[in-house]
C-alpha cells in the first residue's frame, strides 16, 4: 500500500481573532501567528499511518508551500511518514484550488510512485474551501469522496463513511482513489522523541517549476480561474449592554428582552 497525504501549513486557527488588515496596504497582518500543519491534515496523516500499520507499505506527504515550511513537514516525518515532497516555487504562488490541485497532481506524478490511496484533509483552516480533494481526484481521473469519518481497505477497495447533514453514507471506492478526511475524525498521534530522531534521516525532496511537467497556463495566480479582489474585515461589533444583579433579577430582565424581541412566552 502506497499512501500519499496532502498537507498544508496554515496560520494557527486558534489565533485568527488576532488577524488584522493593514489599513494602508490592505494586506493581511499575520505577525505573531505561528504556522502549524492544517488540523484536518493531521487527521488524514493519522488515518494513513493506521492503514500502513494494518497493510504495510509506505506513507509519503506532499505539500505545496514556501520553503520555510520545511520545519512543519519535518513534523509529519516525525509523526511517522516515510518521506516528503515539497513543491515550492514563486511561480506557484497565488494559486486557487483549481491550480493548487493541478500542481499537486503533477507533483504526485513526478514522485514516480504508484499511489493506491491519496488522502487530504477535508478542509484547510485558512481558506476552508474543501475543494482540493475532489479537484485532485478529477485531475487524476480517480474516484474521490470528501468528508470521510471512517476508512477501511480490503481487496483493492476503500470502504468509507461520509458525513452528510443527517447521518452517514457508506460507499466502496475502487483503488486508487482520493479521500478527504474529516477534521476530528481520529486522534492524531503525538510526535515522540524517537520519531524526531528518525525524521533526521528521512528525505524532503523539493520540486520547483522546472522539475514538474506543468502547463504554465494552469499554475499560480495567472493560471487560476478565480481572482481575488479586496480583503475586508466585517464589522460585527455591537454595544453590549451590561446586565447586573442576582441571577433571579437578571432572569427577569432577560425575559423582558426576549419578549421584546418577538418571542411569545
Amino acid at each position, binding site marked *: 500500500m502506497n499512501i500519499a497525504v496532502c498537507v498544508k501549513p496554515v496560520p494557527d486557527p486558534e489565533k485568527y481573532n488576532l488577524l488584522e488588515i493593514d489599513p494602508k496596504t490592505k494586506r493581511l497582518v499575520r505577525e505573531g501567528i505561528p504556522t502549524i500543519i492544517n488540523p484536518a491534515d493531521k487527521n488524514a496523516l493519522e488515518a494513513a499511518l493506521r492503514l500502513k500499520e494494518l497493510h504495510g507499505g509506505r506513507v509519503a506527504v506532499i505539500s505545496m508551500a514556501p520553503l520555510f515550511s520545511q520545519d512543519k513537514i519535518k513534523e509529519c516525518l516525525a509523526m511517522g511518514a516515510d518521506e516528503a515532497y515539497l513543491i515550492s516555487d514563486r511561480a506557484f504562488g497565488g494559486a486557487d484550488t*483549481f491550480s493548487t490541485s493541478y500542481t499537486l497532481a503533477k507533483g504526485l506524478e513526478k514522485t514516480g510512485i504508484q499511489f493506491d490511496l491519496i488522502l487530504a484533509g477535508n478542509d484547510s483552516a485558512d481558506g*476552508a474551501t474543501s475543494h482540493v480533494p475532489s479537484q485532485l481526484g478529477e485531475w487524476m481521473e480517480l474516484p474521490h469522496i470528501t468528508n470521510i469519518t471512517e476508512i477501511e481497505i480490503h481487496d483493492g477497495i476503500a470502504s468509507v463513511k461520509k458525513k452528510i447533514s443527517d447521518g452517514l453514507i457508506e460507499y466502496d471506492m475502487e483503488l486508487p482513489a482520493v479521500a478527504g478526511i474529516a477534521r476530528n475524525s481520529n486522534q492524531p498521534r503525538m510526535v515522540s522523541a524517537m520519531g524526531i530522531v528518525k525524521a533526521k534521516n528521512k528525505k524532503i525532496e523539493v520540486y520547483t517549476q522546472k522539475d514538474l511537467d506543468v502547463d504554465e497556463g494552469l499554475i499560480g495566480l495567472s493560471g487560476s480561474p478565480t481572482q481575488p479582489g479586496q480583503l*475586508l474585515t466585517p464589522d*460585527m461589533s455591537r454595544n453590549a449592554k451590561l446586565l447586573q444583579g442576582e441571577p433571579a433579577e*437578571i*432572569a427577569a430582565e432577560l425575559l423582558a428582552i426576549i419578549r421584546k424581541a*418577538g418571542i411569545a412566552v
Partner: protein
Amino acid sequence: MENKKILIYAELKGGSLETSAYELLAKARTLFPAADAAIALAIAGCGIDEALKEAAVSGADLVYGVDSPRLELYHVDYHAEALKKIAETFHPDIFLIPASCTGEELAPTLGLKLRTGVAAHCVDLQVDQNGEFLQMVPAFGGKVIGEIYTPKTKPQIASIKPGMFSVIRQQPRSCKTVLLDDSFLEELKTKIKLRGIEKDEPSGVPVEQADVVVCGGFGIETADNWKQVERLASLLGGAVGSTRPAVDQGWVSGEQQMIGTSGKTVRPKVYIGAGVSGATHHICGMKDSNVIISINTDKDAEIFAVSDYKIVGDGAAVIKALCELLERRQ
C-alpha cells in the same frame, strides 16, 4: 448586453425542494435588477414529478430535471454528471450551489468538469459597478472576507451555505420545464458503489429554523449543567445550539446543532450564548442573529464584542434562574 443566465441547484428533501433553493432564488433575483435575468432551477433525483411542479411555480423562469434511479441517494459521480448535463444545456453565466454536505462536494467537482472557477461558502453575492459578478468568501474562519472574481471562464460557480440568505417568496412566472433524457447516466462508468445510509435520530427543532437558540459552550462545564441549556431551549420553544467543544464533550450527540464555519448558520430572533468564548469560527455562524445575549465568567470574553447584552457570571446559574422564572409563570 444579453441578459444573464443563472442556474441554481435545487436540492431535494423528501421529494420537495430544500429551503436553500428558495434562498438562492430570492438572492439571484436581486442581482441584476435592471436587466431581467433568466433563472433556472436544476433538479436531480428519482421520482421528481412533485418537485418539478413545485419548482415551476417558485418564481423561476425555467426548470431542468434529470429523473433517474441512479439519483435516488446521493452519489458524487451521478449527481455531478446530471448537473453538468443541465449546465451544458442551459449555458449559465452563474451557477449557484448550496454548500450543504453534498453540494460542498459537487461544486468543486463541477468546477473541474466544466473547467471553471468556484468560490466556496460565499457569505454574499454582488454585482460591482462594472456589472461584474462578485463573490464574497470568508477566510480565516470568517475573520476576513475576500472578494472573488471569476473573470475568464463560465459559468462562475459559487457555493453558498444554507441559511445565508433569507427566503422571500417570489411571484410565479411563466415557466418552462425541461426533463432531460437520463440515458447518459446508465452509460456512465463509476468506481464508486453506494453501500447504504445511516440516519441520525432527529434531535428536536433544527437549530437553523428556531426563533430562539440557546447555545452552550465549553463554559457550561458539566453534562448535568447542560440539561439546563436543554430545559431553557424547550421552555422558550427554541432549539439547543452548541460550539465544537460541547460536541467533543459529548453533551450533544453529533454536529447537527453545532453553529459556526464548520456547522450551521443561524439567524434567530434571539441567540443566548452561555459559556461561549466567541472564537471567530463560531461567531461566523451566529453574528446575524437579531438579538445576541451572552453570559461568560470572563469580563473580556470576545463574544461580548458582538453581543447586545452581556452578563458577567456563571452561565448555568443564569440559565437555571431563567428556567425557574419561566416555569413559575406557566
